[in-house]
């Protein structure tokens, strides 16, 4: 290809040898696609499993330049994969489908695909896909300022302006550029003048993301504008554009989570049974753990803080979720959600059940729960569920009361944040009766420890059931949360499992979960008895249940926000749907809690528990 020649002159032959990962469950299509790509002289890796693809991508982020994926796949929805890749690895993803419905294409674009091709794919279309890689690099370069990739792209970029050699290149790309730019811009990317700034490429580390989330939370998801976020974050060398594009992604994530959250809520409800167990177990243990947590990580706090109110919560989609991997549902984690809808209980229960695969690592043990519950508390925007009241009595959270804010961000889309092995499952269960730990934020290991947290707030359910248990649960959750959060740290990118933001959530959630749990417990316990006890959680503020989903990760990365959590700003992360699913008994209280949380100033419905965010 002449274009290739032009482009690759002098440089490493790009696009020849561009590393593409092709994913399609249909073997015929995959064979065809692979062959076509190889014919274009790309270096191709094929797989029929989305999960395998993710694994490969996570193993080594620099192994591939581009991903092409089918939309309809049995093991994972193509859009989900798309999201993950976009958030975690920031690689260009092209969607493929036999279905060219405008709606689907739109969905692909909004999920961040840089192109959408119809099957059967022709070789001509594939010959130009390298432009997406270049474009992205160019964009990154503009944003970050530095050329981290010694790719010929830079040559190309520079050349784009040049007429001579790159004339052809320019022309060829022009048409597509327009389209692509639209997509790009849509992603919130402010296209800077390429040659203007050479800033170092921004990597959204867990820490950075945490700050981001905290800033967003503080401002309120609706009011969060890049400029203000930037100011709040106060990070050197970060530009408004960086923040803007990150915010865009975040918003998409939250949106998605909220959809998932609903589903998860349902799931959580199903899991609810597990919760009760948790409560029991958690009660004491959880607390104990907290102490250990006391040291709590900054992460936790940060996580909470950064928990963007709405967004994060949204992430928590999995209500129970934090840990619920892939649990769609809002139902799952309700910890935090209490606000939202009375579902919180459901969520919690769901959370519990969720702890799928999460190892019940004694997250609690390790995790110093210093989640900054305080911070969470203020997240007004988020309705954090996470604001776990600093259960004083339970005080699991030493110090920070961070639980309070533990907004457990549910992992929305993903079933509990890919609780990968690292998953720190907040499962308090490890301590106690495992079941409880639903809150455990399943930390997804992806690297972001945080992200892995899928706080499964099992607590939710339990809370409802057992008064006493609930208390314990809450603690459990809290503890777990803390731990999980800790584990999660890392980059935001790691949200391996479905919800890229999971890690965030996890962390955040861990703490909140506890509080949430506690809170939940309280709520559940109509008698206030528990409630009072846990009241100390006050720091948590209105039932800051740890909505696992809402656990805000201070890490910033994992937003695991639970959609419901975000209610505060009206951003219900979790989908309010679960209302119905609330635990009947305490539904009322939970609901109240939820509302209370939303406002953060109301008393909790729970028997007068004014968990207000005393944080």
């Amino acid at each position: 290809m002449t274009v290739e020649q032009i482009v690759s002159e002098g440089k490493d032959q790009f696009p020849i040898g561009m590393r593409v990962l092709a994913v399609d469950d249909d073997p015929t299509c995959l064979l065809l696609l692979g062959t076509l790509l190889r014919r274009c002289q790309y270096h191709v890796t094929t797989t029929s499993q989305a999960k395998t693809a993710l694994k490969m991508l996570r193993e080594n982020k620099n192994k591939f330049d581009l991903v092409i994926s089918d939309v309809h796949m049995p093991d994972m929805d193509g859009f989900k994969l798309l999201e993950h890749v976009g958030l975690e690895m920031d690689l260009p993803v092209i969607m493929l489908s036999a279905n060219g419905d405008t709606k689907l294409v739109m969905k692909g674009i909004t999920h961040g695909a840089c192109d959408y091709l119809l099957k059967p794919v022709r070789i001509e279309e594939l010959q130009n896909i390298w432009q997406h890689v270049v474009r992205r690099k160019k964009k990154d370069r503009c944003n970050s300022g530095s050329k981290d990739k010694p790719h010929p792209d830079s040559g190309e970029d520079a050349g784009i302006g040049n007429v001579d050699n790159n004339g052809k290149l320019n022309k060829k790309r022009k048409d597509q550029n327009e389209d692509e730019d639209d997509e790009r811009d849509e992603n919130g990317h402010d296209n800077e003048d390429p040659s203007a700034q050479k800033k170092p490429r921004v990597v959204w580390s867990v820490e950075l993301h945490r700050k981001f989330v905290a800033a967003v939370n503080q401002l309120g998801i609706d009011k969060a504008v890049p400029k203000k976020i930037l100011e709040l974050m106060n990070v050197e060398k970060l530009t408004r554009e960086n923040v803007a594009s990150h915010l865009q992604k975040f918003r998409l994530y939250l949106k998605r989570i909220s959809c998932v959250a609903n589903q998860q809520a349902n799931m959580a409800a199903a899991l609810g049974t597990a919760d009760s167990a948790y409560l029991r177990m958690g009660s004491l243990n959880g607390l104990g753990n907290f102490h250990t947590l006391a040291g709590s990580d900054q992460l936790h706090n940060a996580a909470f803080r950064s928990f963007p109110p709405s967004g994060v919560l949204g992430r928590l989609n999995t209500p129970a979720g934090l840990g619920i991997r892939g649990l769609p549902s809002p139902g799952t984690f309700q910890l935090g959600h209490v606000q939202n809808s009375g579902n919180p209980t459901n969520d919690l229960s769901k959370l519990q059940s969720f702890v799928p695969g999460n190892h019940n690592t004694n997250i609690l043990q390790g995790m110093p729960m210093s989640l900054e519950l305080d911070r969470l508390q203020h997240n007004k925007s988020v309705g954090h569920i996470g604001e776990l009241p600093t259960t004083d009595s339970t005080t699991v959270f030493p110090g920070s009361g961070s639980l309070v804010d533990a907004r457990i961000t549910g992992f929305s889309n993903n079933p509990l944040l890919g609780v990968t092995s690292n998953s720190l499952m907040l499962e308090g269960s490890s301590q106690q009766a495992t079941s409880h730990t639903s809150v455990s934020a399943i930390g997804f290991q992806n690297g972001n420890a945080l992200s892995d947290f899928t706080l499964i707030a099992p607590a939710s359910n339990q809370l409802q059931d057992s008064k006493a248990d609930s208390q314990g649960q809450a603690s459990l959750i809290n503890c777990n949360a803390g731990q999980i959060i800790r584990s999660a740290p890392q980059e935001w990118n790691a949200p391996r499992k479905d919800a890229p933001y999971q890690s965030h959530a996890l962390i955040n959630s861990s703490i909140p979960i506890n509080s949430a749990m506690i809170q939940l417990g309280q709520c559940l316990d109509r008698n206030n008895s528990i409630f009072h006890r846990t009241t100390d959680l006050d720091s948590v503020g209105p039932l800051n249940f740890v909505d696992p989903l809402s656990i805000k990760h201070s890490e910033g990365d994992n937003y695991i926000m639970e959609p419901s959590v975000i209610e505060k700003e009206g951003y219900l992360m979790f989908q309010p749907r679960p209302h119905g699913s609330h635990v009947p008994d305490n539904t009322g209280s939970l609901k109240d809690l939820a509302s209370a949380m939303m406002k953060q100033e109301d008393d909790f419905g729970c028997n007068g528990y004014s968990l207000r965010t005393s944080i």
Partner: protein
Amino acid sequence: MERNPMRRQLASMRKSLFDQGYLDEQFMELEQLLDDANPNFVEEVVTLYYRDSARLILNLDRALERRPLDFSKLDGLMHQFKGSSSSIGAKKVKAESTLFREYCKSGNAEGCMRTFQQLKKEYATLRKKLETYFQLARQIGPMESANRPK
């Protein structure tokens, strides 16, 4: 050469497959990928298609036996099948798939079942024709087929 008549026969077979609407341009795209490294590429893909799609056909059959019909599931299965079929350029099969999906969307059970029967017929017919075609092509030699004018 004794190959010439065979080549001619192959050429005419191929032409009729296109003329009669069994295959579309996508099949030509596949042929373009034939080279020294992949001399039997088209045959490989088609073989793979028939093997894999048999599973889909079976699932569709089963799904069509249920009462009441789950249209959304049927639609999903057919979507996959359609994607596969379009990859090899199976034109008539693809048309039936599209029709089937229309019936699914409108909830027309009778239409679905009828269309599916038709689809299976087309699917089987194409398979036979392609088998014959490839057999002949193999006799002539792989590259010969690749060099056939489009």
